[in-house]
């Protein structure tokens, strides 16, 4: 189907990102093993040992994974609720317009807005002050930079939910899922059973790859964790970015240990994604 010249051109163009990513991984690996760097003196595993002994990286990965999982699950539930609103309460095109508007908000702006609304000196606190709910910011609950990552989770949900909800709407329409639901009802199922047993599993089957993607996005998130996340432990992207500029030059290889581990995890995540993707490729 594809001519040799097209293959060569395509291959060369694919080689650009391939080379960049592979070299960046190898550079980080070499740095973390003491093979590169101005102040390094040759092969050593001390940086790797120190990193895993300190537990900072493991804590960061655990926090990133748990936060990403919660965001993904909440976004899924939220998207299903919105679909229900669409079809049970007649929320029509306005809902889609709302989702498109939310989708157009970049992550950094969403993080900024999370701060603006939820910080103790933020908009909600000020409204509460004027309505007599609180008399000072100290009385407002801690919702950002908090130990439970509430603000961060909310920010992540607002970023992911519109995307997922729009995807569900499109899948519903494109696959005419209502016909399956109608058929089930005609055959004696209650509307709830039809939705729970027919529509939701069909949506789930078609969205699993996307859900893995949303998990991986949130795992790697940077803007939200930077502005509204915890200071310790930090999400993985923030940890890596911060550690490259740590004060002690001798600790610089540590940041490359973090980044190398992160890239290995990303590749593992990709393996899951591509394995899942192969099962769900639809061709004419």
């Amino acid at each position, binding site marked *: 189907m594809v001519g040799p010249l097209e293959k060569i051109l395509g291959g060369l163009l694919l080689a650009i990102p391939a080379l960049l990513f592979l070299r960046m991984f190898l550079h980080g690996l070499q740095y973390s093993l003491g093979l590169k760097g101005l102040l390094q003196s040759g092969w050593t595993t001390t940086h790797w040992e120190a990193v895993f002994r300190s537990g900072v990286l493991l804590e960061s990965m655990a926090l990133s994974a748990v936060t990403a999982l919660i965001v993904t699950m909440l976004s899924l539930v939220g998207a299903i609720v919105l679909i229900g*609103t669409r079809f049970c309460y007649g929320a029509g095109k306005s809902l889609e*317009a709302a989702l498109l508007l939310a989708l157009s908000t970049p992550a950094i702006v969403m993080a900024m807005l999370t701060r603006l609304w939820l910080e103790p000196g933020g908009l909600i606190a000020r409204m509460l002050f004027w309505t007599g709910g609180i008399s000072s910011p100290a009385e407002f609950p801690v919702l950002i930079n908090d130990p439970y990552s509430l603000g961060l989770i909310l920010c992540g949900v607002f970023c992911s939910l519109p995307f997922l909800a729009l995807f569900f709407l499109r899948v519903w329409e494109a696959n005419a899922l209502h016909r399956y639901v109608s058929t089930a009802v005609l055959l004696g199922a209650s509307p709830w059973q039809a939705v729970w047993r027919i529509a939701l599993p069909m949506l789930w089957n078609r969205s699993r790859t996307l859900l893995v993607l949303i998990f991986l996005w949130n795992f790697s998130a940077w803007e939200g964790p930077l502005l509204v996340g915890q200071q310790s432990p930090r999400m993985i992207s923030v940890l890596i970015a911060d550690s490259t500029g740590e004060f002690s030059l001798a600790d610089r290889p540590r940041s490359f240990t973090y980044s190398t581990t992160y890239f290995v995890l990303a590749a593992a995540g990709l393996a899951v994604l591509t394995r899942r993707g192969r099962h769900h490729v639809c061709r004419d």
Partner: protein
Amino acid sequence: MSVVTELHIPGKRQKPDTSGIVILLTVVMLILAPLLLLSGGTGWTWPALVPDRPGGMLWSAALSPDNELFGAMFTSLLLAGVTSITGTVSGLLISRATAAFSNPVPRMLLLFPWIVSPVVAGISMYDQLARAGLAGQMSGVVLAQLAFAAPLSAVVFQDLWSNRTRAMTRLVRDLGGSTTAVWRHVVWPAVRRIIPVCLLQTALFSWLDYGLVSTIGGGRVETVTVRLFALLREGGMNQAAVAALILMTPPLLLAVPLAILRLQLPDHVAGVSREIS
């Protein structure tokens, strides 16, 4: 009213879209209102709800040609333009080349930029781009963004190369057609509707990028996102609100017409199957 009744009877008079309108208004209030409020003045001392000194001074300053934000807009536009065109063309060619692969490695490579943090990638890529003399240059930023944009668009194009497309290609070749004929009669009709989507997608990626431009650009390539972060570091929430609205403008320019288009469409019950827009 049951789900089935709503879905099942075309032409039945629909309930007013009250809940949808409520959700739409909520989204507008949550996102646009605070930014517009803060950008409409300077200072925001507790417990004021509005800026201490209301006025349009920040907007007139931001839109003044001497202002860094004004210059940053043009840099962002230029980067977005170059990245989107090169990314889309590259993505098309890459997707064509990898279409025949059953090997998962090219597919993994294409999906890698979707999940890797651009900040981490930028920090890790700096060394090799510095050695190539591209760090601190617009060209270096374009190259780094291309590493993300090309795979992004390649994934979008990938699903076009279906069995039907293969059959059409075989037919053209069997009838004596060259590669040019294949592109003219098979590839172009398949991709022409997707190309604007890819251009927009890659342009948006570049427009909103901070991680790559801040690390590879070395402070010499100043985009709207770089200015926004600088304003956040200054603690100037009012100026940051202005920068945030400017940053949202291109996505909004896409989303608002799409939203208006959806609002103006006839009130379809979901029972009617339509092309995905």
